[in-house]
Structures are given as structure tokens and as C-alpha cells.
């Protein structure tokens, strides 16, 4: 049994167990789910430890350099003149996926722990949760575009219901908005995927293939095919490969999310229950970034290079726009949601720079943001559970009421705003370094983008500190008066146990960034080399 396959499908197994158990034992569902996620975490840590590094394991466009690979023929259809359709069950990881995989497994554990707040319809919740679990893990492992797309789309439905059924007051609106936005992206992605599949033939078998890695090799494109590099085909007057890139990019940019495709995010986050917010911010957004690296850059390297300026521009706009929006929010969760937009802007900027520093920084930022946003949303959830209110103006002086809580909030806030010693600092600094290095190394981005990105860091400090000052410091004053005061108890053991590992990991990654960089370096270098070769 391939370990990745095991990792992907364990949730389904446990989901079946939950599905078969009667509702009378519903209180055990959360423990079953926790067990599943813990096993996944264990497996992913095992994978992390056994993940080999070195230039021979760069991955990216070398199929043989991927690790823990499993490749099984899945759908093979003879379609006459269209050739044979070859779809494989093809999973494997390289440096780009491994850290995200571990991050995902951990975030899932945290999300499970925060599911304790869910009180209604437990069976449905945990079934959907586990389905989502499978899908997100699958996305990071899939190397066949068809499989990737399958997992990618499979995330939508559980999320729709998780937001829609267990969410807040405007949950229906938020859920449908989320669904429509992402579907909009992915449907057009389907078109490009089909086009790619018809353009690419597997040199070994001569069949058309969905293999992502084969798609990266220009030699595999048949001359007259729509996405052939040599063919210079056009779609509606535009170069076909540019169109393909843009469509794929939009699909992933919606997930990231990149301004102006981001408006689903604040609504979805605000309305979603805490565990789902955690998964959304912690994992879902990373899938966008991962998709851009693996698919947009991998398959359309030359378009990515010519379009790098626009990518970087969008990244910078996201950074600033998200930060400004966060500054003006009155809802704590919404503020954090917008901060995610800002932070994910760094990912895009780093990717656009196409330098080793930038891309490493982007991956680091994804990992770091995975943990930090998880922590932030969990913290918001703690507050919301106590008094069912998140208005920043409704709280004052929480610091003396809930000192431990405040301590964790401060850790999370300062870590997020890029305080050295925490992971976000390394990530953002190197993203900017990469962006600034870009003009001299490959001339893709202008210098000012890095400077604008740096301003985003400043704004980050502004909104986090302002919130801190307004909500936690000063004399105590609560909108709900004495009732709230009783309700606002400090963190309990479960919450502390949940938060402490996150804080420690953020710290550990900040002090020892090599935990991430060592694993991704070879892949990053391979990617950069690949992009330079085009």
C-alpha cells in the first residue's frame, strides 16, 4: 500500500465508520475524527522524516525525482481519431508538496479539536469534514491533472455544506458566493485541462495524457495542438498559451485569493464555523498558491515569465488592498480574513519574482500562514463561542479579564505581523528579498514592487496593533456587561493544548527555517532552473 494513498484515503475509511455507526453514539464521532487526523499527522510526519533531499530529488518536471510515487492506470479509453485517453491514478510528492502536506495534516488536527464547538448534526458534520480532508490531501499529492481536478472540485461541496449548515446568520449567502466563485474558476480550468490533455502525448505510450509532469515538457506537445509552444495557436485572437495560463491563473487566484477576486473570502470566513474557517484559511488558500506553482508555472513557464509583472502587480495590490481593508473592519474575524488576503499577496509576489528566495519565501509564507491563520481563527472562535459576538468595538480591556487568551492573541498577532523569531518574518523578508533581487537576476519585476510589499508589512502592524489596543488593552468595558463578564472565561485545557503547538511551531519555524527550507530547496532550485530554461 502506497503511503500517500493511505494518507489520502484514511479519512474515507473513518468516514465510513462514522456513517455506519448509529447516531446514538454521536458523541464519539469527534474522537473518531480526531483519531483519523492524528493518524494522518503521524503518517505525514513519517513521510516528512523519510523525505529524501538532494538534487536527485528535485521533482518539478522530472517524474523519476518524485517520491512516494504510486501510478496506476485508471481510465484508458480508445477514442478513435482523438487517440487514446490515458488517465492515471498518479500520486507523488516533491519539495513543493511535502511541507504543505505536513502543514495540512496538522491544521486538520487543530480543526478537529476546534470542532468541539459543533453541537448539531454531528454525523453530517464529521462526514463532510472527513470528505474535505481527503480532498485537500489529495490535491497536494495528485500528479495527474484529472485526479487533481477531481480532488480540487471535491472540496467545493463539503465546504458549501459546512459553511451553509453550520455557519452564521448570512451563511446561505456566504456559502453560495463561495461556491459560485470557485466554480467559476474551475469550470474554465476544465476547458484548459481538456485542451492540454489533447495537446500532450505521453512519449512512452503515444496516448494523450493528463500527466502534469508530461505537460511540462514542450517536446510532448504535438505540433498542431492548441497549446503547442511551437504552434503559436490563437484563441479568439489571443495566443492560446496565454489564454490557458490566464484561465488557470484565475481559477487559482480565486482560491488564493487575489484582489479583485477575493470578495468571497471575507463572507465565507465570517459566516463559517471555526473549524471550517481554519480549514479555509489554513489549507484552502494554500491550494491556490500551490496550484499556481505546480500548474500555472509548471505548464506555462514562458507565459509565467512574460506575465510575471502582472502577477507581481496583483500580489502587491493584494498586499496593500487587503491590509487597508483589514484596517477598516469592525468585525474581528473579517479583519483577520482581510489580513489573509494581504498575507497571501506575498505568496503571489514571491512566485512572480521567480527567484529562489522569492519562491522559497512564498512556500514558507504558505506554511507559516497555514499555522498562523489557524491560530487566529481558532482564537476568534474561542471568543465567539463565549459570547457570540465578534465586534471589535464591543470589547475593551480583555487583557485583564482573560490574560492567557490575550497572551496567545498577542503571540498570534505579532507572529502574523512579521515579528522576527516567528515564521512569517522569514517568509515575508525572503519574499521581498526575492522580489527585489528579481530585476537584477531575471528582470521580471520592477524594484518598487518589493518596496510596496514592505509597506504592506507596516500596515500589517497597524491593523493588528490597533485591534490589540482596542480590544484587549485599556480599561475593561464590554458591550454585554456583567453577563459577558461571566461568560468570558479564560482558555481551558483543550484550547491551550490546541494553541500551544501552533505557537511553538510558528516559533520553531522562525528560529529554524531550515525545517522548511531544507526540504524545499532542491525543488525550488529545480523550478527556477526549469523556468529559466523555459
Amino acid at each position, binding site marked *: 500500500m502506497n503511503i500517500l494513498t493511505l494518507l489520502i484515503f484514511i479519512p474515507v475509511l473513518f468516514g465510513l465508520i462514522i456513517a455506519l455507526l448509529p447516531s446514538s453514539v454521536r458523541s464519539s464521532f469527534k474522537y473518531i475524527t480526531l483519531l483519523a487526523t492524528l493518524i494522518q499527522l503521524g503518517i505525514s510526519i513519517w513521510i516528512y522524516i523519510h523525505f529524501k533531499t538532494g538534487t536527485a530529488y528535485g521533482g518539478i518536471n522530472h517524474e523519476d525525482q518524485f517520491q512516494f510515487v504510486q501510478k496506476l492506470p485508471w*481510465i*484508458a*479509453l*480508445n*477514442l*478513435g*481519431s*482523438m487517440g487514446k*485517453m490515458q488517465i492515471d491514478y498518479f500520486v507523488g510528492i516533491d519539495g513543493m508538496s511535502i511541507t504543505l502536506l505536513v502543514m495540512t495534516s496538522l491544521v486538520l488536527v487543530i480543526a478537529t479539536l476546534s470542532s468541539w464547538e459543533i453541537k448539531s*448534526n454531528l454525523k*453530517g458534520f464529521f462526514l463532510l469534514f472527513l470528505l474535505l480532508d481527503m480532498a485537500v490531501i489529495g490535491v497536494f499529492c495528485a500528479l495527474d491533472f484529472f485526479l487533481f*481536478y*477531481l480532488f480540487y*472540485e*471535491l472540496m*467545493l*461541496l463539503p465546504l*458549501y*455544506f459546512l459553511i*451553509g*449548515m453550520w455557519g452564521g446568520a448570512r*451563511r*446561505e449567502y456566504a*456559502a*453560495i458566493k463561495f*461556491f*459560485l466563485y470557485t*466554480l*467559476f474558476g474551475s*469550470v*474554465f480550468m*476544465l*476547458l484548459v485541462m*481538456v*485542451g492540454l*490533455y*489533447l*495537446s500532450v502525448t505521453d512519449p512512452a505510450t503515444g496516448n494523450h495524457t493528463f500527466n502534469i509532469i508530461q505537460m511540462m515538457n514542450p517536446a510532448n506537445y504535438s505540433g*498542431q*495542438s*492548441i497549446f503547442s509552444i511551437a504552434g503559436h*495557436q490563437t*484563441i*479568439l485572437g489571443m495566443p492560446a498559451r496565454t489564454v490557458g495560463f490566464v484561465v488557470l491563473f484565475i481559477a487559482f487566484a480565486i482560491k488564493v485569493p487575489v484582489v479583485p477576486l477575493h470578495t468571497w473570502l471575507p463572507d465565507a470566513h465570517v459566516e463559517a464555523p471555526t473549524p471550517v474557517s481554519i480549514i479555509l484559511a489554513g489549507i484552502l488558500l494554500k491550494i491556490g498558491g500551490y496550484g499556481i506553482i505546480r500548474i500555472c508555472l509548471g505548464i506555462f513557464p514562458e507565459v509565467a515569465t512574460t506575465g510575471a509583472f502582472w502577477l507581481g502587480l496583483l500580489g502587491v495590490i493584494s498586499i496593500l488592498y487587503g491590509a487597508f481593508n483589514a484596517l477598516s473592519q469592525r468585525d474581528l474575524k473579517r479583519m483577520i480574513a482581510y489580513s489573509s488576503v494581504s498575507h497571501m499577496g506575498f505568496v503571489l509576489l514571491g512566485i512572480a519574482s521567480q527567484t529562489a528566495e522569492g519562491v522559497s519565501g512564498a512556500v514558507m509564507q504558505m506554511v507559516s500562514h497555514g499555522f498562523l491563520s489557524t491560530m487566529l481563527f481558532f482564537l476568534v472562535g474561542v471568543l465567539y463561542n463565549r459570547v457570540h459576538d465578534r465586534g471589535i468595538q464591543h470589547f475593551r480591556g480583555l487583557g485583564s479579564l482573560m490574560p492567557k487568551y490575550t497572551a496567545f492573541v498577542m503571540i498570534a498577532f505579532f507572529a502574523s505581523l512579521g515579528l522576527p523569531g516567528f515564521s512569517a518574518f522569514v517568509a515575508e523578508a525572503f519574499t521581498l528579498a526575492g522580489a527585489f533581487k528579481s530585476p537584477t537576476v531575471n528582470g521580471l519585476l520592477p524594484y518598487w514592487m518589493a518596496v510596496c510589499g514592505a509597506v504592506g508589512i507596516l500596515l500589517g502592524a497597524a491593523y493588528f496593533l490597533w485591534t490589540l489596543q482596542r480590544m484587549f488593552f485599556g480599561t475593561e468595558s464590554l458591550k454585554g456587561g456583567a453577563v459577558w463578564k461571566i461568560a468570558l472565561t479564560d482558555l481551558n485545557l483543550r484550547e491551550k493544548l490546541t494553541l500551544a503547538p501552533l505557537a511553538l511551531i510558528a516559533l520553531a519555524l522562525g528560529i529554524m527555517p531550515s525545517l522548511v527550507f531544507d526540504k524545499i530547496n532542491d525543488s525550488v532550485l529545480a523550478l527556477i532552473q526549469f523556468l529559466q530554461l523555459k
Partner: protein
Amino acid sequence: MHDLLPHISESLSNVLGSIIYFMPEVYLGLLFIVVLITDLIFGKRSTKLCRIVASAGLVLVMFKDLQQVALILDGPHLIFSNMLLLSRSGIFFKLIIDLLSFILLLYFTWDNKLKAHQKGLSDLYSIAMASVLGLHLMVMAVNLLSIYLAIEMVSIASYLMVAYRTENAFSTEAGLKYVLFGAASSAIMLYGISLLYGFSGTLDLADTIGQLSKVNPISSSFAVVLVLIGIGFKLSFVPIHFWVPDVYQGAPTPVTAYLSTVPKIAAFALLINFLSPFILASSWKGFDIGIALSIAGIVTMIAGNFAAVMQSNVKRMLAYSSIGHTGFALMAVVILTVQGVSVLTYYLFVYALANIGALVLANYFTNETGAEEVDDYRGLGLKYPTASVCFVIILISLTGLPVTAGFTGKLFVFSAVYSVYEQTHSIWLMLLMFTGALTTVVSLFYYIKIPMNLFLKRKEIAEINNKKSHNLLILSILISFMLVLLGIFPDLVLRYL
């Protein structure tokens, strides 16, 4: 007569030789008579018996269908003096039609309203049998006469089925609209056929094209357009779709399930039969049928899907959605390649399964709670979890999201169109695909309304209906399972097409 005498024996041997290629239809004819007789002998109590006979008979017919595959290994075969064409794709169309009809036959009595029909359902089975025979003819027809005959046969059967519940005003109203619209369209089509015959001097489609090329293109184009109205009536693409929402809503739900699926499949087969000479022959000088169909497809997708957004009645919504799906399927007709046909077959099969499933579930909820409108579904999800989950799966398949068969269907259609686009670079194909993708998003707008009401909206449900419709539930579970299975392993079916 004297001219014909020398040929009589030849013609007769042709007829006799054709029968071996016509066994399923012969069986169907016999089946019709057997059902009719059963009905006559056993009178009002015959419903159950008719059902058994009809269903069992259809299984036999399917078996005969399968046997035909062996007959045409050496290629398509013309029978009955070029009246019909038996081809591999035709056989699969017939098989799918029979299979779906079989499901629908079982389903008829599970609708509480239809079951309560005072005049009994035995006649419905007779009509359905004749209708299936008509569908078989439609699939195989390559002669103007057989085309007209088959369409009329199916149409008349459909009118009868829609208006079947005479005690229900909606049903009759739908019947009236259907019959007036249908009769008018088929009359117009007949006029078109008469012109086609006049311009070419033959009813045989294969010969027609050769003669038509010698006629003024405007004249021949007009004739073809009039014929397309008749076929379009069965397919319900824009602008011949107006009857669809009213009829689907008014008809008994099982009949809606029937109308929205099986005749459509047959009509697509017929459309392919009718058009392939025009598209393939270079001598055709009239309008570009590919472009015309593309426009029709695009407009149909837009009209169907966009109009569905505003609907509140579940059946009506599904009616619009079926219009949208017709538009999507037209995409595969436009390219008219071998792959196009097999992909189309798969797409239609999957669509039909899902659509039947959706209507079965709509029926289930009507049976259980009397819910007809989307709003009535509020909060039912937690009360009927299994049915609701199945509903979600089926709707997902209709939308075309993984991991359901609807997705693979959509994917294969896109692939087929794409591969043609690669060679022709026709802007219309691109637009078709673009619209297809866009309307998929739009379709989510309305499909999601059902899960949203089922699960997301909350309402206290007090009344409890004791009439449990287990059969419908089992059927929908089976269909959902099939859809997911085909979503993961599409080659289970596709490899044969």
C-alpha cells in the same frame, strides 16, 4: 404495376431479409399487443400485470438489442428498402432507451398521484410500449417517411401520456398545449418534407442530398429549416422549446421523467441521421448547418439555464435545466464525428439517469410532504437525510461536478469538441465551449437552491406522512450510486460506445 412486377420478388426478399435486423422492434410490436390484450382481458385490475409484462418484455427487447451488435460487425446495415439504418451507435441508443424506459415503467406506479388515477394505468403501459417502438424507429430512421412516421408515433404517445391524468386540470392543460404545439410543428415539418421531396424526388435521405445540390440553395435551405422545426420540437432547443416548461410541469412526474429523457435521446439520434448527409456532403450549398446548430446550442444553453434561475417550482426548474442540457448536447452534434456520437450517447445517458433521478426525488418529496415548490423543501434535509443526500449527488451530476458521471460526460464532450477545434479553429466551437462552461456556473445558481433549502434553511416540520415511498428512495439511491460509479470509472460504459 407492370413496371413493378419484375421487382416484387426482389423487394419481398429485401423485406424478409430485413426482419432479422428488426427483431427488437418485432418483439416490441408483439409486446404492445400482449400488453393491450392483457389490459383488455383483465380490465381494471390489470395494472400490475401489465407492468410485469411490459417490464419483462423490455428486458427481452434489451437482450435482442444486444444480439444485434453481432449482426453489424461489418458495418451499418440498411433495411426495409432503405427505410431504416441499423448502426452500432443506433443499437446503443436503443439499448439506453430501453434501459431507461424499463426504469421508468417501474417508476410509473410509484407516483402517488398517478397511482390514484381512477382509470387505471394499464393503458399507459400500452401507450408506452408503442412509444418505445416509435423511439426505436426514430433512432434508425433514414427515410423522410419513416422519420415523419416515427416522430408522429412518439408524439402522439407523448400527448396521450401527458394528458393521461384526465381528472387533473394541469395535466390536461399541459396536454392541450403539447398537442397543439406538437401538431403544428409536425404539420410544418411535413410541409418541409413535402418540399424536400419535391426538390429531390426521393424520400431517401442518402439520395436527397445529391438532388438538393442542384436546387436553388435558398429553397432547399428553407425546406431543411422547416424539417428541423419538427425534429427540434422533440429536442426542444431554442426557439422550439417554449412548450417544455409548461408541459413538464403539468404532466405527471413520471411522464415528465419520460418526456425529458427518452424521446430526447432518440431525437438526437434522429438529428444525427438527418443531418449527417448535409454536414458531410460537400455538395450542400445551403446555409451552414454547423453554425446554425452552434447558434441554436449557444442560445439554448443560455435561455435554458438563465431562465431556470428564476424558477421556484422544482419540476419547472428541471424543465428549463433540460433545455440547457439539450444545448450542451448539441455541441457534440455540431462536430458530428464518431467520437462526437459516442460521447453524445454517454452524455445523454448520464443526463437522462440524473434527470430521472432528480424527478424521482422530486416525486418522493411530493409523495412524502406534498412539496412542489423549492421553498417547500425547507429543512427537509435533516428529516429525509438519505433522499436529500441522493438529491445532492444527482444535482451535482446535473451540474457537472466531480466525482459524478455528469462531470465525466461534460469532460468527454469538451474533449471531443476540442479535438475538432484543434483542426478547424472554428470560432463557433470555441464559443460553444465557452458558453458551456459559463452556463455550468449559472446552472449551479438554481441547482444549488434545492440543497440550500433542504439543508441550509431551517423550518420546523410538524406533519408526518406515513405513506413511505421506499421504492422511489431505493431507485434514487441506485441512480446516485450509478452516477458516482460512472464518475469514477466512466470507462465502464464508455468503452463500449
